């Protein structure tokens, strides 16, 4: 590792020692957790560590991939909370506006994100999960607004969001992908109702959004009318690229959570446990290397169809194995329910992490859909005939 990277690592580590929240896992209510998230995000923005993947010109932006990895690893090593609340804002909104938005939208929304405005994503619906093109929420153009009616599902932390990346159907003609339009919606607009969903582990990380004659100005459309599918790909590819790199490196930086647990459980001398740890750590390193290669290929234009699916499935399987080892090493104590916190892999609550790992094999295009993409588009295996009739 170069001297410059070592210096960065030292600087991040020193800053985190004085600033990383310590007791965030003890948050008794969701509101307390959210308040903590907002404060932590503000601190990271000020320090220049919140948006290392944004271009130069933004505070802390313009970092190389190598620098980003160092920051993610150190955040995890310091056991700092993941930026769950601002995740969609800093990755998905940024990628979408950067690739497909206009100057006015970028000028208005990007600085607001750094000031704390939070976003959620309104893609999935009750009838359109992994089959995203099947969405039915209608956007009807009336004068200078779209009037939106329908329901969105599995929207992460929508109950705390100010704005929403919204995919709606503006036409039913042609291919299902053709009639979609991408909007930026104000969550405070009349007609928006949010209902948190109680998940398997007791959290309310996801929510439903009900839309009843919600008006979205034409100026809040990203791309042309009917071009929503292409814009949505920009959002989703951000998820499968940079965000998975962050998560991979956070998992690697969080190995200490697992080794601490092994020590505490008195299993540090157990050859069977050590072997599983050895195996898992190779799997974690492989996932990081895969994310590295994926990003390298994307930057150099060498990305192939299916690459993103490989990264996603590899990450979600590794996350499952990681949390599973924690559950098994922790034994009975992990079966005692602890206060719930949000997050994927460093809640320190192994059963919650394990249950949460299923969110990664289901959300953002299920593991099965990714396998179809790999088989049909990458390995060119033939599709099944469309002979089924309801």
């Amino acid at each position, binding site marked *: 590792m170069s001297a410059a990277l070592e210096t960065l690592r030292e600087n991040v580590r020193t800053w985190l020692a004085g600033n990383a929240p310590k007791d965030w896992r003890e948050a008794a209510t969701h509101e307390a957790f959210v308040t903590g998230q907002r404060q932590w995000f503000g601190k990271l923005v000020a320090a220049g560590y919140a948006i290392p993947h944004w271009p130069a010109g933004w505070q802390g932006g313009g970092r190389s991939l190598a620098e980003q990895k160092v920051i993610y690893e150190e955040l995890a090593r310091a056991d700092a909370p993941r930026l769950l609340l601002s995740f969609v804002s800093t990755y998905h909104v940024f990628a979408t506006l950067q690739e497909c938005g206009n100057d006015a939208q970028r000028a208005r929304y990007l600085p607001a994100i750094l000031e704390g405005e939070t976003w959620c994503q309104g893609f999935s619906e009750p009838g359109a999960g992994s089959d995203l093109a099947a969405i039915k929420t209608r956007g009807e153009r009336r004068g200078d607004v779209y009037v939106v009616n329908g329901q969105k599902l599995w929207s992460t932390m929508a109950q705390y969001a100010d704005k929403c990346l919204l995919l709606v159907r503006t036409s039913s003609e042609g291919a299902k992908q053709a009639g979609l339009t991408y909007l930026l919606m104000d969550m405070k607009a009349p007609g928006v109702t949010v209902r948190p969903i109680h998940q398997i582990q007791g959290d309310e990380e996801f929510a439903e959004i009900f839309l009843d004659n919600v008006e979205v100005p034409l100026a809040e459309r990203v791309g042309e009318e009917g071009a929503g599918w292409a814009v949505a790909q920009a959002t989703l590819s951000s998820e499968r690229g940079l965000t998975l790199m962050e998560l991979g490196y956070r998992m690697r930086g969080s190995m*200490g959570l697992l080794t601490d647990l092994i020590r505490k459980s008195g299993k540090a001398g157990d050859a069977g*446990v050590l072997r599983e740890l050895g*195996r898992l750590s190779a799997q974690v390193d492989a996932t990081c290397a895969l994310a590295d*290669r994926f990003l390298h290929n994307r930057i150099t234009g060498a990305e192939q169809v299916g690459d993103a699916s490989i990264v996603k499935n590899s990450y979600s399987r590794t996350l499952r194995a990681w949390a599973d080892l924690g559950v098994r090493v922790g034994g009975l104590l992990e079966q005692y329910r602890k206060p719930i916190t949000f997050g994927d892999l460093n809640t320190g609550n192994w059963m919650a992490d394990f249950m949460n790992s299923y969110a990664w094999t289901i959300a953002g295009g299920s593991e*099965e859909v990714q396998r179809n993409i790999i088989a049909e588009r990458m390995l060119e*295996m033939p599709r099944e005939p469309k002979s089924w009739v309801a």
Partner: protein
Amino acid sequence: MSMDRTELRDSARKAFGASSATGDAAGNWAKLSEMGWFMMTVPEAQGGLGLGSEAHAIIHYELGRALVPGPVIAQMMLVEALAATGQSDLLDRAMAGGKMTASLALPTEDDVIEAVPDADVASHVLVTRQGAIRVVPLDRCTIAAQPTWDETRRLFDVRPPSASDGVVIAHGQAAEQLRTSLLLQMLLALSADSLGGAEAALAMTVDYLKTRRQFDRPLAMFQALKHRVADLKIAHSAAEALLWDRAAGRPSLALMGSLKTHCTEAFRLIAEDCIQLHGGIGLTQEHPCHLFFKRAMLNCALGGDAFHWEEIAGRAVMETTG
């Protein structure tokens, strides 16, 4: 992968094509010497090509892909040992293709050196024992052929006449360092060989599934089989990313051992599933499936098995984190 690396890979692919498992071993060996691969990692000052461990991995990846037989890994270990210790006469002979060999088992203190490829036709064997590394002429050793399941490799048990026979090329601290670097080289070679083999086995299987028809459609159309193949592709891609990552760095023995385990296990998983996905034909000797499977199983066992390396990797993680 840089331009040089791509060229190296392409020239290997051109030389060995799809499979050399059934070709003639002497012809393959001559090709390898002609292309200068035995001098690949030797510094230019010593007459070599001065290429690094990434190039080394690329060659072994392609050798595995084409199931090239012969003692290439052992030869390269011997070349490395001779180059590191300035044994120029023997080094020149080995770089020119003079067959020499080394054990592909983990070094032990036993009298018998196990898993030595092509010991019956090699001139010398590398022996690591009693704190020293020696080069022992094979005509003074007792050699016992050990028929193996993997027909692409010929393995022998070798017993040197005495513990002190041969030319000592390193002892003490230097021997320990050399032993580690040889082990690192062997583990990287086995990792690359495995993923090359896995790639070829998987490609062969995908082609077969597209051709073979059952229930009025190609097998490749069944989602159950697609998902299975996609999982194999994911396993291979993840292991390959780890391979190039570690080949480009300077990993510890623990990390190289865990790489070897990760890659050989991926090869084994893929080779086993390829037999199942080929159905009955996969269980015959007429079809190459079994060659990949047997090479995978041998690679799992060579250079220390998963039990050995995973425990060492786990200890290393415990020591360096938390």
